[in-house]
């Protein structure tokens, strides 16, 4: 069952045309500006099934935040069909709000001067959660996200990592069926990032929450998501599983070999030696032209190999190469 369905979504923005020419023309343009239509999202279609965790990524200005805002009903599309949990986000925003949650990494939903618990209590009232249910839910989430000791602390005294854990608890409080995460780990240190990613993944797995995540951090994508949608300049570039992305879009692999012989005479022209020292060699293989198996077979046939490792490029490099296409 699809919880998110997007068909031919378009969103255009009007931007003023910059003034050129004489002072009179510039003055005229200043007083009576003319506008041009810029497509922020240009005819994208995709769907997301219940419980899926999807990374929605792209370079800055690709249109991912705009799409997210349309999906949550904050912004109206210029054209296209959007259904979230069977409802139209813009028209049914208030009804849908009970079933969706969101975390915007660069913003806070917690009251700055008040203890975390006060905001959570307010959110319980906003989402019409009965008191008994709220207390049980808070206890469960606080223990899972390890924020019990933070509940009575004013938000201003929390570290960014602590605050973000509280933000995520706030978003999970009303058991949303769909959770939109906009750069939830931005600005966090490595440890805090790792904790947040694990918690999001585990929590969504346990409750079957559908997650749509945007992030520039590929580790967020690898740890939290199973599927990747890439958009650029408002157009869909790729929609595939994370595994397929890694398998189908890797063009180069690096082979590191420890040998008994001091050196080797390399013969494959489709490969490049990127590092060489006595008893050791590092080779880059263009897998579109030559299989790694052939290179390994050739090595084992001719040399005594003491150790061997094959590495693919990091996800970041794969995504970067897709952006460049």
């Amino acid at each position, binding site marked *: 069952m699809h919880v998110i369905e997007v068909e031919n979504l378009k969103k255009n923005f009007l931007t003023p045309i910059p003034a050129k020419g004489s002072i009179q023309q510039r003055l005229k343009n200043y007083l009576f500006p003319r506008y041009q239509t810029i497509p922020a999202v240009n005819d994208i279609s995709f769907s997301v099934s219940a419980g899926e965790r999807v990374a929605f990524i792209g370079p800055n200005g690709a249109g991912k935040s705009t799409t997210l*805002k349309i999906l949550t009903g904050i912004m109206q599309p210029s054209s296209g069909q959007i259904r979230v949990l069977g409802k139209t986000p813009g028209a049914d925003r208030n009804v849908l709000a009970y079933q969706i949650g*969101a975390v*915007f990494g660069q913003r806070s939903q917690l*009251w700055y001067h008040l203890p975390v618990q006060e905001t959570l209590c*307010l959110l319980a009232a*906003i989402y019409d959660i009965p008191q008994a249910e709220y207390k049980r839910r808070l206890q469960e989430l606080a223990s899972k996200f390890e924020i019990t000791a933070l509940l009575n602390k004013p938000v201003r005294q929390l570290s960014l990592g602590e605050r973000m854990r509280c933000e995520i608890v706030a978003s999970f409080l009303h058991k949303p069926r769909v959770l939109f995460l906009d750069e939830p780990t931005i600005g966090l240190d490595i440890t805090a990032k790792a904790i947040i990613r694990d918690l999001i993944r585990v929590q969504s797995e346990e409750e079957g929450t559908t997650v749509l995540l945007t992030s520039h951090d590929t580790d967020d994508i690898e740890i939290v998501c199973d599927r990747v949608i890439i958009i650029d300049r408002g157009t869909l570039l790729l929609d595939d599983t994370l595994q397929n992305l890694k398998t189908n879009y890797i063009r180069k692999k690096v082979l590191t070999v420890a040998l008994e012989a001091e050196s080797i005479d390399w013969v494959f022209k489709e490969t490049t030696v990127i590092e060489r020292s006595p008893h050791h060699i590092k080779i880059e293989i263009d897998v579109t032209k030559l299989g790694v198996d052939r290179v390994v077979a050739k090595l084992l046939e001719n040399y005594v190999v003491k150790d061997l490792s094959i590495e693919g490029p990091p996800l970041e490099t794969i995504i970067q190469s897709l952006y460049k296409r």
Partner: protein
Amino acid sequence: MNKYLSGIHISVQQQFANRGLFVGRIFLYLSVVYLFYQVFHAVSATPERIWYLAITEWLILSTAPLAFQICDDIKSGQIAYFMLRPLGYLSYRFCDGLGSILVRFVVLEACCLGLGYGLTGMIPGSLLTWLLGSLVGFLAVILYTVLGMLIGLLSFWIREIQTVVYLNLTATFCFGGLIVPLEFYSETLRFFCFSTPYPWILWWPAQLLTGAKINFFATFLGWGTWMVILCLIIHFLYQKCLQAFVAEGG
């Protein structure tokens, strides 16, 4: 309804939690009134004039800064969080403002009574006058806050609202009779002032509390009319805003 009451509750708590701002506001009120008292004292003002000043300052400083809050929400994109929730953004912001007003209004009324009595040695009117005057004062502050919401919404189009806020404050001083009561104005100017909402924000409650004879129901009708007009404009503007909404900040 519970969600809006919780909004008021958390706003009241926020007022007390921000101790510096809380104490600062009391200090500001006392300083401003005492400063003007010294100026007025030099021209031998009557106790009623001192009370008028203390009351109008109390009302002005009791308002919630919703214009800037709404403007910040729009400019920072924070409004997105509110729009994702099952509650009306403006209703919620109004309740939030109501919580701030409740605390400021009660605390500054106590200061007004204490300082006014300390400076003049008398309290005008009866207990009933003060009960009625407090209610009217509260309604006046609400009207001013609603006007602030309208200004805040303008930031959907003009982004920076400082100039409009400044104009509004100046208009309040001039047309609301902050320092000089409207009786001192010429007939034409007074007519113009009463064509704006400002007299209902300051002049009406201050007149009532200083014991001047005014037609209570006629002025109450004026207040109600302005509330309806402002609420209708806000509703219309907000609907326009939602249609053309572009959340700022990525």
